[in-house]
């Protein structure tokens, strides 16, 4: 366990270092003056003295190796630098915006799992080959469409139906629980479709396997077979796709937060990308990469718990 934790931590740190280095090198490879981005972009026509002052202020006048060393040293101390566009410490911005996005992503992830597993169990209840085929068709049709729907369109359509036409829910995300419903649904439905596609197949395979038959022969109830044998197998490929799911949630959060005017890390990232605010982009990306490392470690743990075949 200690070895596992150590190797995971080392691997994670290596990934974070590589991401920071990648962005540091990337910004030097592309044309364009960072000082211009600090002064509000190439259109701002800042005077040369102001550009020079900005370079000194952000340490851009120093040799590259020194800049790199300073950045790494700051990162080690948790200092993510100063945002070009907001002119406040990046760590403060990230710390302020992170909880909202985490809540949104977590709720959507839980809902997606409930929907995907629920649909898988529902279609597995169909009796007889013919009903089975019909249920499978409907289930897989729903999943393919759900997985194909882009977040930015789904959000707009949900607003049209539930906010504009029916007036049940607010069209923008406010602090109330009702304001969270549409953003969470928008993030969860495509993910549920994607997870459902593999979970349903895996559940069907498990329920028609010899060990399920043996459990039934031992007199276990159909619900017991589902709980003890089926769900475990349905969950495994879902856990294996955690990295993909996180990607969907992060990309989705960028879209959903800007669509529903909800403050958060995704919207911060979009604004930072538009303003080419490199320190802020780096900060948000590092936090996302850290989340990825943690999620993958947790998924690894969950896989070991759910699948006794992988041990230590």
């Amino acid at each position, binding site marked *: 366990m200690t070895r596992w934790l150590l190797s995971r931590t080392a*691997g994670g740190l*290596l*990934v974070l270092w*590589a*991401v920071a280095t*990648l*962005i540091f090198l*990337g*910004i030097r*490879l*592309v044309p*364009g003056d960072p000082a211009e981005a600090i002064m509000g972009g190439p259109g701002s026509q800042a005077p040369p003295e102001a550009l020079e002052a900005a370079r000194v202020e952000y340490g851009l006048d120093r040799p590259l190796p020194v800049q790199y060393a300073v950045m790494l040293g700051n990162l080690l101390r948790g200092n993510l630098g100063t945002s070009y566009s907001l002119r406040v410490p990046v760590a403060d911005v990230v710390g302020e915006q992170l909880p909202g996005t985490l809540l949104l992503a977590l709720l959507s992830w839980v809902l997606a799992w409930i929907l995907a597993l629920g649909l898988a169990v529902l279609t597995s209840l169909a*009796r007889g080959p013919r009903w089975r085929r019909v249920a499978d068709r409907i289930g897989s*049709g729903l999943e*393919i*469409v759900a*997985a*194909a*729907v*882009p*977040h*930015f*369109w789904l959000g*707009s*359509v949900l*607003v*049209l139906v539930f906010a*504009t036409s029916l007036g049940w829910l607010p069209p923008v995300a406010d602090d109330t629980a009702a304001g969270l419903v549409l953003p969470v649904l928008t993030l969860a439905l495509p993910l549920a479709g994607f997870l459902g596609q593999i979970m349903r197949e895996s559940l069907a395979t498990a329920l*028609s396997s010899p060990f399920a*038959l043996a459990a*039934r022969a031992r007199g276990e109830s*159909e619900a017991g077979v589902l709980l003890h044998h089926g769900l475990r197998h349905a969950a495994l490929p879902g856990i294996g796709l955690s*990295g*993909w799911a*996180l*990607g*969907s*949630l*992060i*990309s*989705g959060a*960028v*879209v959903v937060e*800007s*669509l529903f005017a909800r403050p958060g890390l995704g919207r911060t*990232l*979009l604004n*930072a*990308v*538009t303003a*080419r*605010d*490199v320190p802020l*982009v780096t900060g948000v*990306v590092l936090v*996302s*990469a850290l989340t*990825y*490392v943690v999620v993958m470690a947790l998924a690894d743990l969950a896989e070991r718990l759910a699948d006794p075949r992988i041990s230590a």
Partner: protein
Amino acid sequence: MIPELSATTTDERGRPTERLAARRSLGGLAARTAGELPALLAGVVVLFLLAAVAAPQWLAPADPLAIDPAAAFQGPGPGHWLGTDESGRDLYSRVVFGARESLTIGAAATAIGLALALLLGLPAGLTAGRARRTRWLDTVIGRVLEVLFALPGLLLALVFIALAGPGLVTTVVAVGLSTAPGYARIIRGQVMRLRDSAMVEAARVLGRSPGQILLRHLLPNALGPVLVLATLGVGQAVVWASALSFLGLGTPPPAPEWGAMLSAGRTYLQLAWWMTVFPGLAIVLVAASATVLGRWLQRRTEGLR
């Protein structure tokens, strides 16, 4: 319910007899047609889209850029089947012409992704687990892939755009870059499987040069499954590219690109729902058709290997 202990019986060549019987009867033919119905529908959608890419002027009645302020914000109806936008442009024509924009971006991004993946996956697959002198290459590429995987979804694309600035070319490269790590991992696995196969062994015994083996045996066989996946991937690439346009980072308006059209429609969501609903439906149709066709190809080619 007790499931059938042996689901299918097979004939002397190992083919399921049930399917053979179905193939002979007329009812079986109908059942098989019904079974392929989703793939058939997806095929029709793809044919229509390809026609729209090749010759949009044959399918669409109007110029997608011609403005007619008097006809602005007309709902769907005769004359304008899908309505008009804020400048009175015909939405149906814009959606049809948009197929060329959006699908070209999606296909180009997928091609870039595959090329990058080949560059990473091929050497990694060839050196993985081999002589110590060359194995480091696989280790290094493996680390690079691990880092790229840590920026999942659109994250890598957004970083690239932040560095290179927004625009059409950047979008294509950015989306291609985001898809590359996934393909690279699959190519690496394929190459590893193939290089140890009897086929390659035989070619080596026959004295074929490594270059010949690479071009004749490894590449064609490794690319097959990847091209099937790329069919699935084009749908994803179209969705991602239009997402970037929707966020204002990709194709700028008034080009009839689906994501850019949705971005414009967002402003008038309460006033003109059709400006949002129809371009989005086009994206959903592309993504869903790509999934159905890709899975169909997967099923059809699995037995061949």
